[in-house]
């Protein structure tokens, strides 16, 4: 069985600065995989590379066995990969309902249709309502997304990401800036919504990482220094030295 | 033919340098503030009209100094009382504000000075042929214009390389997001940059006024070409703006000087074909298509290099 995501020898340079060097990462289907590492290690860049936001300088990225490096983000999305953003990135002037509905449209096959009434699409309406229920925002559906609270916007961000039904989900620090209670709620939400899908998550909160992930990869200076189960990572001396050790002080 | 090439090159470089006086200010303002100042050509027009009026009152030389300063003050006022209040509504609102201003300035100018061309003359001191090349007398005033624009160009280089504000501007050109971290005096820096940019446009107006036509539609005629220059060069790139200014300046000057058409090259069409699109194209002279050449270049560059000649920035 091929991996859901396979990153092979990827390098990314901006001018002469090498942000990512010889990056190798493999995420099996159905796995919940966390990417951790100190600030500036290249975690967000890794997500940007996988999701097509930026193209790698060299190397290859595969999604379910198919090469996707060099494709545009929407082409990758259509092949079943969806991502969220670290900084909330919603459609601010549109209502919560419209936000989620727009994310449902492509996957339900309506694409650029200009001959269908968007309010008269039962499948779209059902899925939108389901997702809004899932992310606990159904009662807020008529509010412009820009007016939601921060935690609500983070939940909407997750909702937009999963709405298209992609089977590989990339979440970039979904709990950043949340209170303890909000974080717990968000983790439960993520666990439930990504059931049966592949999840890659960047996270700083170690309790979230060790509670959620099946496997963990540690990224330092644009390179994966260790990859394994939470127990293996916890016991890995290289990781302790390079990352956990620093954090522990 | 050689005569035409030499004269057109001189005129083309001159026009290009004038364009650069305008496009440099526009580029710096855009890089720092994210605002594309639609009214930039209007500041050029204000420079010409202020120059004309002050020349009548106190003579050309004082006008050369005072008129750009006045334009700079107008520019600073626009930044302080207009753009700063509009900033919170986003860049489109800012662009629209300057669009409305361009419209209003044209109306105000034609309201005060009328719609016909002004009698804005070359100062007597410079009203003589500088040299004769082949059979053409090259006016001293044009050499003066060239000198002024080259001097300003050099002064700008020095300011950019050697002063604190120059370093800030340079940093803003390469790292637009950095400007937000300038701290509390960012407002004053914006106002200053906007003022200097407007004043540069004003200088261009004062010196171009006597050589070209000083009239209330001069901003509307030059404005679109100016935007072609900065998009062609790549938004936010000063070297790009410089190259694009010269390219457009030369292309337009040469095109105006050339009188050839397909008809003169290959002989007239069979008259029995009658008037048609083909005959229009066949008979049009290069001089007649000069006004559309910048836009053709614009479309071509966007097909080949969507970011412009030297552009690196997405928006």
């Amino acid at each position, binding site marked *: 069985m091929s991996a859901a995501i396979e990153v092979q020898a990827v390098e990314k340079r901006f001018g002469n600065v090498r942000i990512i060097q010889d990056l190798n990462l493999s995420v099996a289907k159905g796995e919940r995989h966390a990417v951790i590492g100190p600030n500036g290690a290249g975690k967000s860049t890794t997500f940007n590379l996988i999701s097509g936001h930026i193209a790698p300088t060299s190397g290859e990225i595969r999604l379910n066995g198919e090469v996707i490096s060099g494709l545009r*983000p*929407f082409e990758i999305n259509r092949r079943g990969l969806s*991502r969220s*953003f670290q900084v909330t990135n*919603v*459609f601010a*002037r*549109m209502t919560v309902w*419209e936000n989620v509905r727009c994310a449902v*449209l492509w996957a339900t096959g*309506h*694409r*650029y*249709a*200009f001959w269908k*009434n*968007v*309010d008269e*699409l039962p499948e779209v*309406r059902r899925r939108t*309502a*389901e997702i809004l*229920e899932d992310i606990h925002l159904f009662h807020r559906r008529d509010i412009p997304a820009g*007016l939601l609270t921060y935690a609500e916007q983070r939940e909407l961000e997750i909702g*937009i*990401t999963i709405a*298209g039904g992609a089977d590989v989900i990339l979440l970039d620090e979904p709990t950043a800036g949340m209170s303890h209670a909000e974080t717990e709620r968000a983790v439960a939400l993520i666990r439930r919504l990504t059931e049966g899908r592949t999840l890659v998550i960047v996270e700083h909160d170690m309790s979230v990482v060790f509670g959620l992930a099946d496997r963990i990869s540690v990224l330092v200076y644009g390179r994966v220094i260790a990859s394994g189960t939470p127990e293996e990572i916890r016991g890995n001396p290289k990781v302790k030295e390079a990352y956990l050790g620093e954090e522990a002080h | 033919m050689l005569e035409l090439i030499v004269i057109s090159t001189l005129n083309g470089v001159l026009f290009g340098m004038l364009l650069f006086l305008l496009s440099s200010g526009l580029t710096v303002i*855009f890089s720092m503030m994210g605002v*594309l100042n639609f009214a930039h050509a209007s500041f050029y027009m204000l420079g010409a009209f202020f120059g004309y009026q002050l020349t009548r009152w106190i003579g050309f030389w004082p006008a050369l100094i005072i008129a750009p300063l006045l334009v700079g003050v107008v520019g600073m006022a626009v930044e302080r009382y207009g753009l700063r209040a509009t900033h919170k*509504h986003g860049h*489109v*609102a800012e*662009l*629209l*504000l300057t*669009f*409305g*201003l361009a*419209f*209003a300035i044209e*109306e*105000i100018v034609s*309201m005060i000075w*009328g719609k016909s061309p002004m009698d804005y003359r070359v100062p007597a001191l410079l009203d003589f042929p500088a040299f004769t090349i082949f059979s053409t007398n090259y006016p001293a005033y044009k050499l003066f214009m060239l000198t002024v624009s080259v001097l300003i160009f050099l002064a700008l280089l020095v300011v950019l390389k050697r002063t604190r504000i120059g370093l800030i501007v340079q940093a803003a050109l390469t790292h637009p997001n950095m400007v937000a971290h300038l701290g509390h005096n960012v407002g004053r820096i914006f106002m200053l940059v906007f003022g200097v940019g407007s004043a540069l446009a004003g200088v261009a107006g004062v010196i171009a006024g006597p050589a070209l036509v000083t009239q209330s539609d001069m901003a509307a005629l030059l404005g*679109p070409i100016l*935007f*072609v220059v900065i*998009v062609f060069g790549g*938004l936010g790139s000063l070297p790009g703006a410089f190259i694009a200014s010269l390219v457009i300046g030369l292309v337009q000057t040469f095109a105006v000087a050339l009188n050839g058409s397909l008809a003169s090259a290959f002989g007239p069409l069979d008259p029995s074909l009658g008037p048609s699109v083909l005959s*229009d*194209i066949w008979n*049009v002279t290069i001089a007649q298509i000069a006004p*559309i050449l910048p*836009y053709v270049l*614009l*479309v071509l560059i*966007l*097909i080949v290099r*969507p970011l412009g000649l030297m552009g690196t920035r997405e*928006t």
Partner: protein
Amino acid sequence: MSDTATSAVDIKAQSRGQNLRFYGIWVIAAIVLIVLPMIFSSGGSLTSFSLIGISIIFALSYNILLGQTGLLSFGHAVHYGLGGFLAIHAMNAVIARGWSIPLPLIPLVGGVGGLAIAIVVGWVITKRAGTVFAMISLGIGELVASSSLILRSVFGGESGVTTNRTDLPQVFGWNFGPQIQIYYLIAFWLMISAIAMYALTRTPLGRICNAVRDNPERVEFIGYDPHVVRYLAYCFAGFFAGIAGGLSAINFEIANSAYLGAVQSGIVLFATFIGGTAYFFGPILGAILVTYLQLGLTSVTTVWQLYFGVIFIGIVMFAPGGIAGLLMMHRPLVRAGSLGLMIPAYLIALVPTVALACGVILAIEIIARQHLPADAQIINLLGIPFSATSPATWLTSVILIVGGYFVARLTWQRIADAWDRATTIARDRGYLA
């Protein structure tokens, strides 16, 4: 947790209620269009209504770009103009060849013209959004306008191309000579176009256009290519602008290079923005106001364009939502019943604000008249004649501006305070987020 199935049904019922109200509005609009010329039947008002109808279609088409997709175009008149020219040539061809195409179908030809040019140039223009799109649209606009003067055989040079609309095949015994028949033709196409453009906002494409407007980057991560979305929006805008141009060609029986020019592009931008881009009816208000001002002001003042510019700058700075935005701001207050708090504040502010405006108008008119002959030196403001040359007028103007400004500033503060109170009430009662 509420049941998903029932909540989805709720939404369906809700949208059905909206639909009913929505059909009601369209029926009322149609009735108004039919009845209007029976109440105001003079030739002048028929001409005005015709022009307003055309500019409403044009402004609505512009708002597909600006309001729906967030694209600021400075060259929208290209589609209007080319639609007009194609319509004129089609009419002349119909006359010359004796085809049996009746006049009411000609606007569709205009639409095809506008669409055709959009299909050709749109792909390049919509590669980029934001400022670059604005500049490229300006460049394309200038390119087409200048080219039209070169291709004389198609565009007729300075004088343009003319036609005679009564020579086309007749339908229902109408020869479309009288203005009233043209009015109803325009009203018909206005209804069709407005309904079509409204329907477009409620399709998957229409909603994705909004998403591209709000956040083009994120759209790429939900499966859409923002370039394609912008391109499609551009084509629709071009099509409806072409219909407006075709109607204009029928109305005037001429198409000339002014149709495609920068002024035409600027005016549609003014109308749309002044009316308000965030609501569908905004551009309708804007088109009515701007066309009315254009017709009304030209006979009173020589500097009407300056007033346009000033109004536009005022809207951009103080009310970027336009007139529609200002009106809709009050909706929560109406629902919460706290609008009453605002009315006294508005009425008090009206007096000094009007005084200030009169002062500015006087000043503008005094300056505008300095080049005019002696018999044009009387400024008629609110029924009072002022002499533009008299120092007393100058003084009045200065007093009105300075005094008006200082008093008006106090009353504007009152409005702000009243607004705070009114919105607090609306928020408490749950009508405002």
